[in-house]
């Protein structure tokens, strides 16, 4: 479904990603893990179109999308749950969800999408008239995910979803993502919380200083000695 072939990218003189290849098949949940500064966020910026790759290819459902602007990437069926949620705080929950369905193709299926989001996160239905900024942290997380689902995506990108959350909130967050996962959505999750994300993903890539260090099935990756020592903390 999504394939990156030998992608190199960076900012100015600085190269953050070297020769990264990665694949997400339809129906899979794939995790990208690694320490701070490993290039995880750069990777997502390339996929979502915020940053153009310097070399290499980005192919989604057979179409080359490398270097296309973000709004076109979304139109091709890739939704983004950005780091820090990036909700529109002054807009109501209803308007935030509406903006998730901004594209004409998404508008056509608005009622159906909304029903699916409410089935996943019933609390959002009760908060429709409330401003997004007044929601609790957990509700905001649901809204950010719900907003991404409103675009009727075939692939969802999660950018460091647990960043800045208290430990108890992290567990709840992964419950939310698991619920979305159970609906059959294909997802790519970039995450620092290695232990949690490996429990959820089918496959994973470990990124270190801009290169893919190892890749494999999530459960096997979690058992590798150096991964456990360095990242899982067991």
């Amino acid at each position, binding site marked *: 479904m999504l394939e990156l072939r030998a992608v190199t990218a960076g900012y100015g003189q600085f190269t953050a990603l070297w020769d990264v290849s990665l694949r997400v098949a339809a129906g899979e949940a794939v995790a990208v893990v690694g320490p701070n500064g490993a290039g995880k966020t750069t990777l997502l910026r390339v996929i979502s179109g915020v940053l153009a790759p310097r070399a290499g290819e980005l192919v989604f459902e057979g179409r080359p999308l490398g270097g296309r602007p973000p709004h076109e990437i979304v139109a091709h069926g890739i939704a983004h749950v950005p780091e820090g949620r990036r*909700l*529109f705080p002054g*807009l109501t929950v209803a308007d935030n969800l509406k903006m998730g369905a901004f594209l004409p193709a998404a508008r056509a299926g608005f009622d159906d999408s909304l029903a699916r989001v409410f089935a996943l996160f019933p609390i959002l239905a009760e908060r429709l008239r409330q401003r997004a900024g007044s929601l609790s942290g957990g509700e905001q997380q649901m809204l950010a995910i719900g*907003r991404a689902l409103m675009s009727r995506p075939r692939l969802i990108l999660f950018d460091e979803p647990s960043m800045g959350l208290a430990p108890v909130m992290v567990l709840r967050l992964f419950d939310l993502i698991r619920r979305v996962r159970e609906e059959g959505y294909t997802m790519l999750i970039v995450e620092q919380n290695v232990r949690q994300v490996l429990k959820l993903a089918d496959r994973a890539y470990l990124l270190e200083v801009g290169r893919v260090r190892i890749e494999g099935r999530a459960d096997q990756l979690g058992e590798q000695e150096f991964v456990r020592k360095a990242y899982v903390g067991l």
Partner: protein
Amino acid sequence: MSNLVDLVAHNPLLLMEAAVNGLLLGGVLALLALGLNLIFGVLDIVWIVYVDLVMLAMYLVYFLVQVYGWPLWLGALAGVALGTLLGVAVHLLIITPILASPPVNQLLATGGLLFFIQSLATFLWTTDHRSIRLSLPTIEIGGMFVSFARLIAFVLAVLVMIGLYVFLTRTYVGTAIRAVSQDRGAMALMGADPQRIYVVTSAVGGALAGVAAALLSIQYSVHPHFGAAFGPITFMICVLGGLGNMVGAFIASFILSEIISIGGVVWSTEMGYVIAFALFIVLMFVRPGGILARRQ
């Protein structure tokens, strides 16, 4: 102060009349302030040139109606169309090339355009004051005299503002405009082309300038320095309401128009402006974020 007391005691009707006139003026000022604020909210740029675009549209209405004999409503529509075009043109020709520059450069660029337009207007049409000759009556309501032109302008301004409200809250594009004003980057992740949102916003802002031009041309004469007469008060309203805050701008319009109108009757028009500006400066110290800003 004794003037005010005197007036309340001996001629309350005159004071009421001033209050009504202030309300009517506030409607058109609010239209101007909302247009400017809409653009600022989305693009983070203050179009210093805004009221001069209004002036250009006023000249068009004047020439079409007074010189070429078009019916007023048609001339007014042409004014709105020109305002819309000018809004898009300013965005594409002046703002787009320097969108990544520091805000102060963008401010100076629209400021430069202001002087260009002023000089061009003086060159083409001289400094004559030109007005559409209309025989609109003055109507009497309960002993107060109210200009019919002002009343019409107020009603139309309110209708257009209701339309703007519906556009911004009910439509996808309008909601996207509000969303972009909160987070530019996130709206692109929703699939909206930011450049398209900017153009639509500038067009709507320009259209509001055109509407204001049509409504002002039935009350005031147009001249090359029209922008200098209405520009400062418009910016003051926007800052007082909190830049980018539409509700704040709406309220601030009526506060300032009442001060100017009532001050004008009690003392003199100049004194009305002096009080308005003095209040503005004081409020900037007390509430620098605008009247509706929450205290940090």
